[in-house]
Every structure is written in C-alpha cells, then in structure tokens.
C-alpha cells in the first residue's frame, strides 16, 4: 500500500455504509457485455494487427476485468478502503513487473 493511501484512509474509514443491492438487470447487462467482449477478443485475434494484437487483447481483458471488479464484485458500490485495497494489489504487481523489467530490458544494452 502506498504512503498516500494512509492519509486518505483516515478520513474515508466508513463506519456506516449503506447496503447496496445490485439489481439483476445490471448483472445481466454486464454478463452480456462480457460475452460480447469475449467474442470480440477471439475475433480480433484472427485479424493481423501487427503489434496491436497484443494491445487489443490485453485492453479487452482489462476492460472485462474492470467490469467484473466493479459490478460483480461490487467495488463500484464499496468503500474507498476497498477501492484502495484493489489498487494497492495492482500497484504492487506493477512494481514487480517494472522493477524486474529494468533488469531484463537493459541487459540487452550491453556492458555499459
């Protein structure tokens, strides 16, 4: 968790958060969207977009993941603490990847 989160948590600590029940309609819409996105990503993979195939596939995957997180997992209706927790997880994952890549990318640059 980043240093920033601490201060924010202090005044965002929810004592009373109203129960929010997501309606089945929302679930249905999200469900349909996810299936459409799955079809799209499969379809897009057969089209040669050069380097952008990866970008498109990952963008769609991220979009799907965000939809699941926000609606199926109720993060959209949750406290900021929950949102920060999710963010902290992805942030640390990001740190792992980027810091490891500082080595792998620059190894090819040669001896200095």
């Amino acid at each position: 968790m980043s240093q920033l989160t601490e201060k924010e948590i202090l005044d965002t600590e929810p004592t009373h958060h109203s129960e929010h029940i997501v309606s089945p309609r929302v679930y249905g819409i999200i469900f349909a969207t996810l299936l459409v996105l799955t079809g799209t990503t499969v379809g897009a993979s057969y089209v040669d977009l050069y380097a952008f195939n990866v970008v498109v596939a990952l963008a769609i995957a991220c979009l799907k993941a965000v939809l699941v997180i926000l609606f199926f997992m109720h993060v959209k209706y949750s406290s900021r603490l929950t949102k920060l927790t999710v963010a902290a997880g992805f942030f640390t994952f990001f740190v792992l990847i980027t810091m490891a890549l500082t080595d792998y990318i620059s190894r090819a640059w040669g001896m200095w």
Partner: protein
Amino acid sequence: MSTIVSLPDQTTATLPKRSYLNDGYGLKSWLLTGDHKRIAILYLISITFFFFIGGFFAGMVRLELLTPPTDLMAADTYNKMFTMHGIVMVFLFLVPSVPATIGNFVLPIMVGAKDLAFPKINLLSWYLYVVGGVMTLAALILGGVDTGWTFTTPLSTHYLNTHVVTAGLAVFVAGFSSIFTGLNFIVTVHRMRAPGMTWFRLPLFVWSHYAASVLMVLGTPVLAITLVLVVLERVIGIGVFDPAKGGDPLLFQHLFWFYSHPAVYIMILPGMGVISEVISTFSRKRVFGYTAVAFSSVAIAVFAFFVWAHHMFIMGISNYSALVFSLLTMLVAVPSAIKIFNWSFTLYKGSITFETPMLYAFGFMGLFTIGGLTGVFLGSMGMDIHLTETYFIVAHFHFVMVGGMLMAFLSGVHFWWPKMTGRMYPEGLSKLAALVTFIGFNLTFFPQFILGYLGMPRRYAAYPPEFQVLNVLSTAGATVLGVGYLLPMLYLTWSLKYGKIAGPNPWQATGLEWQIQSPPITSNFEETPVIDYEAYDYEWLANKTRHEVQTVG
C-alpha cells in the same frame, strides 16, 4: 508540561480472580481457542522451541568453524546444519517472532478490540505454522536439506538429492501462516479500533505492525509461487528456471528476493515497534516526533518493494538496473536513521529508569545502528562486490536480525511478561542476561566483519588457517550468547510460579493494554473502551492515577 510518574507499589498487588488463563482448562481449551492471547502463548511456546532448534544448529556451525579443516563433521553435514539454521531461524523464528507472539497478544488490546478480526484464521495461522514446523523437522529427520535457506536454482532443482521438496513445502505452508497473521492485523487495525482511537492515537507498535503486515500480505505470495515452481521443476521437470531448458535462473533470484528483501523488514519492523513502546515508557515521555516515526514505518514498507535486486549486484543483472536498485536502497536506509535519532531524542529531558526491557532496547539501538550502517556498505555497489557472499554480510544481517530483532523480541517479552502472566520476572537476573547477551553477541559477530573484509566466504565448512583466530573468538562469543539466551528461558519459566505479582500497570505505561488487569480477561475489556487521550500521554496517566488514588482514599 512535566510529568512525574511513580511506579505502583507491588506489594499490595494481587492476581485477578478471573483472567484469560483460567477461563477454561485442559488441552482442548487451548488447542481450539479463538482467544488471541492464548494463541499468542501457543505461538510463544512453539517459537521458543524452534528458536532453540535453530540455535542448536547455529551452535554446531560455530563449533565446526572452531578449526580450519572439516573435522567435527563432514562438509555435507555442515551444509545441512547452516541450511536448517537459516530456514528455521528465518521462517519459523524471525518472521513470526514479535508479530505472532507479542503482536498477537497486545495489538488487539492496544486498538481497544476484544479480539483480532478473525479469531479462527488466527488459530489456523498457528496450525499452519506448526505444520510448517513439523515438515521442516521431517525434512531434517529424513536426512536434512542442504540448499541454503535461499533455495538457489539450479542447485536446488537439479543438483541435490536431499529433501528440498519437503523443506520447500514447509516454507510454503509457514508462509501462509504469516500471510494470515498479517491479514488479521491489517483488518483489525482498520476495522476494530475502539471509539476515539484515531490513527494518530495508535501506539507506534501498531503502526509498525501495520506496515509489516502489508509486507507479509503482498510479499509472501510471490515466495509461495516461486517455491511452487521450484518444487514443480524438481519433481516433474518443468523449465521455468532451468537454463538447460531455456529458463533463466536469475528470474528465480528476482522472484525470491522480491519477497525475501521485504521479509527483512517484516522481521525488523515489529521489533522497531517494541522499541518505540519501551523507550517511551521508561523515559516517561512521548516518542519524539510521533508522526515521523509512524510514517517512517510506512515509508520502509513502501520502499521495501523497490530494492530487492541489491542482493544480485554481482549476479549478472544489467549494470543500469543495479544502478537504480542501489539508489533506491540508499533511500530505504533513511527512514531507519530517522527512527534511531527519534528514539535517541525521546530520552532527552525524560525521566529514565533502566529496567531490563530498556537495557535490551539500548542494545537494540547500538547494534541496529551498526547493522543498518553496514547495510549501506552493501548497498553501495562497488563495495558490495568485495563484501557480498563473505562473512561481512553474515555479520551485517546478524547485527540486524539477532542484534536488532532478537534484542527487540527479548525486550518485548520482558516488557509485556507482567501483562501476559500477571507476574514479574526477576529483575537482577534478567539484567545480567541482557548484559551477557550483549557481550556475547558482539564477541560473536563483530569479528565476522573483519573476517568478511579479509575475504572469508560464507557457507564454508573449511577455511584457510589464517582466519582461525577470529573464528575462535566468534565461537567463544557464541557460547556466551547461548548462555545469554538460556537464562531468560529458565528464569521466565521460574517466574510463572514464583515471580512477584505485577499488578495492572507495573511500568506506568500509557498503552491501552496497561489500563486493564494483568493478565487480562478473555474479552480484554469489561466494556468497550472510549479513548480520549493521545498515544504516550503521560499527563493523562498521571491524572488518572491521582484520580484513582483519591477515589480509593
């Protein structure tokens, strides 16, 4: 503002009739308990057990190094000894030491909760710890393991025929124990604070445990998956780290140290929390710069994830990358320096007494300063080339882990012993033990700095004869150190029955845990406390005491 605090008269103190200790008897009431205090005691017992197991291996290692050739044991046996010493001490002692025992006991009380957020998960965490411990012992009894605690591939995956899989899975299981402890702490700190207990009224002990817990929760899973890959590679031969199949053994190092560097902070941060409490209590003064100390814990936790590759400077990572990691390493050293100076200035204009926990805390400050500063040697890339993988690094991390963390652990155990058991430890004997530990420690590990600069490599069963003098000193020191560690175990056990009754607040400390009876009742508080004072508010405590005296009078 000035505060006079006088210690309470203990002659009139009596043990409370009802406490968590007599709330149910029999093995079942302990083994199936959900009470964080009882789980803490279970942890304390099992951790002490593994500490002495690990200590035994350390003793064997030091004995073998008394003479240059491999005469006491074969090289193979020696390798198993230091491996078991490392695995047991790191994963079964240092990581859970303060958090799972003292933290488990006092953290919920400090925030004003009746228990940790998830008592059953807390118990599960202890059982996982035991399973991990038993598996480690199994690996030992089946014939040992000789990978070193770092499980370096491809050595661990393809070139050893010892029980790497058992040991790897043991660490995996023990890792989950630590994840659950951390998870429980974070949730408790966020969700279980008593009314009025704001973040900045939390004792620094809680802050440092919070920071360590974040590291446990985010770092340990990476170790878990790495060990899974090592085990899969060893058992069925997949090729993620195996250079013969196209894998990169350095990737193992990256993933391993992504956990194992933060793990160092998992080990030391809770110890720093103990020191904050102890220094403040025995100088009767609020910790100098509370906010700075609190945020330095958080800063350590954040930076911890950015520095891991400083363990790999000579391993063939790219030079550019080494540069980045070295720079970040220098940054993570700063919060520790802040803490040290803030503690020193907490003493300024205090009213200091020198009870045993304080002596251990002083020991911590001296030794941790050395340990921390020698860390800067190793973070400085060019110096690291000569010093890494020698006894210098061994001395460095023992100064931090043993000189720092173990001192803090003993300080904490003595400090909260009256709270845990309701009885005092013998003051004279324990001061002697603190002194013996300090002397023994320096004698053991200081020569190792010199050995390291002379170039003696670590993990050597035999060494050139010119290193013998310093090794003999070190082994002699280890003997003294061993006595220093046996003493507390003996007199603390003795004090369980014969110690003086402590009373609720023998130190006149301000933490919430000292405002309730010792030992506490199972639900900690008769009714939910409402906090209306800042952390380390000795003024408030003095008023309260005066008020109580008046009421009684």
